[in-house]
């Protein structure tokens, strides 16, 4: 059997696959030994197959495996969460809501102010130590010149002062009140 160049080009891929019969293979081998052009096509095609077949040619984006694993975990999670899982989640949610309610009642809910002219104490850090006097209506920063009745003062946390109905001094607490006004929710009063 004798094969020409055109036939070689048609069969070269099958030749590389080992998918040609014995007669054709022998004829092709004989042709390659004589024809440099077809030999070049064979060597080039074999090179292409070898290079692209290398594992290094498969390039995945950085973090691909991690993101895939996360996605699989997320998808597997709902079915894995049994009754106990839901109970834990529900308890956690209840604790968050409960905690929020407790916090609102003790710190964030405004008690009746001692003076109708007072400013609510939005923005004052609840743990800040402030000075109050027995007969006064305001709480102050230590050293404020407007502390009333200095003979009967106590130093307590702002949180406690608020609970007792004291309002912040608009002078020494000015910076907190302004900050509180700008960040306060419109309905927070």
């Amino acid at each position: 059997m004798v094969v020409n160049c055109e036939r070689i080009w048609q069969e070269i891929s099958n030749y590389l696959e080992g998918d040609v019969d014995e007669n054709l293979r022998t004829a092709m081998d004989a042709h390659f030994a004589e024809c440099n052009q077809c030999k070049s096509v064979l060597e080039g095609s074999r090179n292409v197959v070898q290079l692209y077949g290398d594992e290094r040619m498969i390039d995945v984006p950085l973090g691909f495996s991690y993101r895939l694993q996360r996605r699989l975990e997320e998808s597997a999670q709902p079915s894995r969460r049994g009754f106990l899982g839901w109970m834990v989640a529900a308890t956690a949610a209840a604790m968050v809501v409960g905690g929020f309610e407790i916090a609102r009642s003790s710190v964030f809910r405004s008690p009746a102010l001692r003076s109708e002219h007072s400013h609510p104490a939005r923005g004052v850090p609840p743990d800040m130590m402030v000075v109050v006097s027995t007969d006064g209506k305001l709480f102050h920063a230590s050293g404020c010149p407007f502390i009333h009745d200095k003979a009967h003062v106590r130093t307590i946390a702002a949180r406690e002062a608020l609970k007792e109905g004291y309002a912040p001094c608009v002078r020494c607490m000015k910076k907190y009140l302004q900050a509180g006004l700008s960040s306060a929710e419109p309905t927070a009063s």
Partner: protein
Amino acid sequence: MPEQDVSLKNPLDETNEGSLIRRVCDGEHDAFYELIRPYERRVYAAAFAITHNDADAEDVAQEAMLKAFKNLRQFRAESRFSTWLIQITVNEARMRRRREHAHLVEPMVEQQDAEGNYVPRDFADWREIPSETLERREIREKLAEALASLGEIYREVFVLRDMQHLSIEETAKALGISTASVKTRLLRARLMLRDLLSPGLGGAWSTRLNFAKGTKPW
């Protein structure tokens, strides 16, 4: 005597794979990642061959893995798990491509096989390119660029057969085409790539790499 070993082994041997599949079906979901880990790069590459876009390929790869997870009970052991996985990926990628073309006024036309036989353009001598050249990023990029320039129907076949090492029959099954079409497209893809990368071409890509005149990148 074949020139190339076409019976490449699975990264996981089939017994291990079978037992992992059983464990996942029995509710041990964590075993699924172990099952697909050897194939994740190949799944990505298959998705990329069709979507041609990093972000879409990653999304398609993830979706395909999730589908495989949800439908693992439907997997039948008569085909290889990797082939089944690649088949899901190909379907997912094609669906994505169709969705993305849905807004276009012109309907997407499936590419047709070129008529006539492919005639090589370049006959310069090829010296063997050692695989170490693949350590060089610019070489890998140029190979990827050449692959990207192929028509889609050729690229799909080439990626599945020559990069994923699926058999001719598996490639045909994954793409839903005949084995004769796979062979024709594979021949054309290989010859086109050879021409694109041929050193004798003078260089579309070798000159862009700024190699000294007359030298080859390998």
